[in-house]
């Protein structure tokens, strides 16, 4: 088929940040298929320069409101490594609990509010308030609880307050943790089961599309690695987090204020699907069960399934959060003060799995404890090349469909990555010329 196609989706909706989808086909030859990021550049690395180590995480959590917790924790890990600050086991457990809360929150938000409207043929979640009130109320209840984990443990779900270099400025009380546990067990577990039912009913709307690519994520031998682990690639195996540069290979691409990344192929994918492919063996039974019902199998190469991988992961986060709370309470909560006495001034790297994929921060500090150099590599930035490559394969496959169908599938593809464009990227616009 020799078709001419110009798709330009400006300011793609229901993603975080501003991006455009641009597709050009001339005489059946695809000239261009890419996600353009039009978010205004923010210059965070430059803003960090000269700031005190007390401020680094406060500033970097403002890179992105959706993954503020991820940035905060990653930043703290980099700072602690650079300054030689040891943290306690309790601190690590509390941080893991926070990551579970944030992942749960973000995955639920994405599945229900941003992706589900596509499956139901709606433009937003608001019409669902009228048509599926029980689903909306359930989603809100799950989101509330996930956010409450953030509120209780970090003072605030968006731009957390209490996690600081070396620990926490406030330790949650036993009572607060018990209440979170009660709600996780009594509300979240049944709500998760109901979510799987809902998603199962909708899964038929997920396009069937496969493209082999490289998947990169953290993997830990002890658990489903979100807080720490080795950086693992489905192509090349694992390296320690300090060698992160070899696993990203960042370069600037003209159409994007965010930097693109590639490692062994022209592109790679990070995020829930990458974590699934690398670490599915570490998920709890409830999550594995959900995966089976939702048709998610290991080595899945359909990027649209990322949304399903997020749902599966949400179940794991909910249950593992309960396990972490039990451990914290069994060990007895200690009223610890953050350890903020640097033992050295050097370079440190933090790598964390945040909802959209692996996130890296690297800082170098001077002898006054001020940032001398900084580098942040954001998951959505890493995925951009992969999205472009997906589009290049997808468009010819669906070129026989109507412009509206093609546009919708492209938008859904981009949304499936749950891109967080304000970290780096923006929305899509598709314009057709035939």
């Amino acid at each position, binding site marked *: 088929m020799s078709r001419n196609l110009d798709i330009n989706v400006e300011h793609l*909706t*229901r993603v975080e940040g501003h991006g455009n989808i641009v597709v050009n086909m001339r005489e059946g030859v695809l000239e261009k298929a890419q996600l353009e990021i039009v978010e205004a*550049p923010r210059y965070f690395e430059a803003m960090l*320069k000269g700031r005190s180590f007390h401020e680094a995480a406060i500033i970097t959590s403002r890179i992105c*409101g959706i993954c503020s917790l991820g940035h905060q924790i990653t930043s703290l890990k980099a700072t602690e490594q650079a300054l030689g600050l040891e943290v306690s086991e309790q601190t690590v457990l509390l941080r893991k609990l926070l990551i579970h809360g944030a992942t749960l929150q973000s995955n639920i938000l994405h599945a229900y509010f941003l992706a589900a409207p596509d499956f139901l043929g709606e433009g*937003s979640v*608001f019409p669902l308030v009228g048509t599926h009130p029980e689903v909306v109320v359930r989603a809100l209840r799950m989101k509330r609880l996930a956010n409450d984990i953030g509120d209780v443990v970090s003072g605030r779900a968006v731009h957390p307050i*209490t996690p600081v270099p070396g620990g926490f400025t406030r330790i949650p009380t036993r009572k607060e943790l018990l209440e979170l546990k009660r709600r996780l067990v009594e509300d979240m577990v049944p709500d998760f089961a109901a979510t799987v039912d809902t998603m199962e009913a909708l899964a038929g709307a997920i396009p069937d599309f496969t493209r082999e690519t490289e998947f990169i994520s953290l993997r830990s031998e002890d658990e489903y690695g979100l807080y720490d682990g080795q950086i693992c690639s489905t192509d090349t195996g694992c390296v320690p987090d300090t060698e992160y540069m070899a696993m990203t290979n960042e370069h600037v691409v003209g159409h994007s204020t965010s930097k693109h990344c590639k490692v062994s192929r022209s592109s790679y994918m990070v995020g829930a699907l990458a974590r699934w492919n690398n670490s599915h063996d570490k998920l709890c039974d409830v999550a594995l069960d959900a995966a089976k019902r939702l048709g998610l199998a290991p080595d899945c190469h359909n990027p649209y399934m990322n949304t399903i991988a997020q749902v599966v992961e949400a179940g794991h986060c909910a249950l593992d959060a309960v396990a972490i709370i039990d451990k914290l309470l069994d060990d007895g909560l200690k009223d610890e003060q953050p350890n903020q006495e640097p033992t050295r001034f050097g370079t440190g790297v933090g790598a964390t799995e945040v909802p959209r994929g692996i996130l890296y921060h690297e800082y170098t500090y001077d002898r006054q404890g001020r940032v001398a150099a900084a580098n942040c590599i954001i998951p959505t930035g890493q995925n951009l090349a992969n999205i472009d490559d997906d589009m290049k394969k997808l468009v010819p496959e669906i070129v026989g469909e109507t412009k509206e169908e093609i546009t919708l599938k492209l938008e859904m593809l981009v949304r499936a990555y749950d891109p967080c464009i304000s970290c780096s990227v923006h929305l899509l616009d598709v314009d057709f010329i035939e």
Partner: protein
Amino acid sequence: MADKPLRTDKPRVAIFDFTGCEGCELNQLNFEDQLLDILAHVDIVEWREAMDGHADEYDIAFVEGCLSTPDCIKRIHDIRRRTKVLVALGACAVTGGVNAVKNTRPIEDVREEVYGDDKYLFPTLPALPVSSVVKVDYNVRGCPMTQIEFLRLFTALVMGKDFVEPDQSVCVECKLRENECVFEKGMICLGPVTRAGCNAHCTTVGQYCTGCRGLVSEPNIKGMEEILVQHGLSVDEAWKRLELYNANQLEGVQR
């Protein structure tokens, strides 16, 4: 309704984002307990982060983010023309937010540092608060925007009454909550010159106030600098801390 001043029509609300982290918008989706009540009082006609669709006119426009590109300036004028009430949502929109830290350094250095030789690919301006370009009717301060303040403003707008910003220091709310002052812990704090309204959220959970809600009117900056220096910061570091959220407001203030 003769005996009630409340308005009866549902205001049309639109939400826009400029340069920022979108945490303020996210915070609007985080009103899980109130979202349905809020939706009962307004019609949301445009909100890119949450829905498809576009409207030509609105009663209330919430604007998040600072203005940092020529395109931002164009868009904000357009929004101002289409809306009756314009609300700046969050620190980025109200003061420029953390983005304005870049204004304290030469813009060329900033661009070079992040994008190297590719620096000219992206147009950029100083990070400006919305009010420096168009008239802003109300502010919801904070980074992220303070939820309780958003609700206060929201109810005021729905009732058709004015909204008065608090103009006291965060110390007032901090004391109302009987917190131990973080200075007692050997930390520093910007609460004394920062505008209240957050119910001293950060200091209540043991972190220092970073000044995200902007300055009180007529702040004694010299006095605040002195306090920070007394507590061990260098003058330079004291100013860095003060500028984190207030770089635009402190521009030209004597050190």
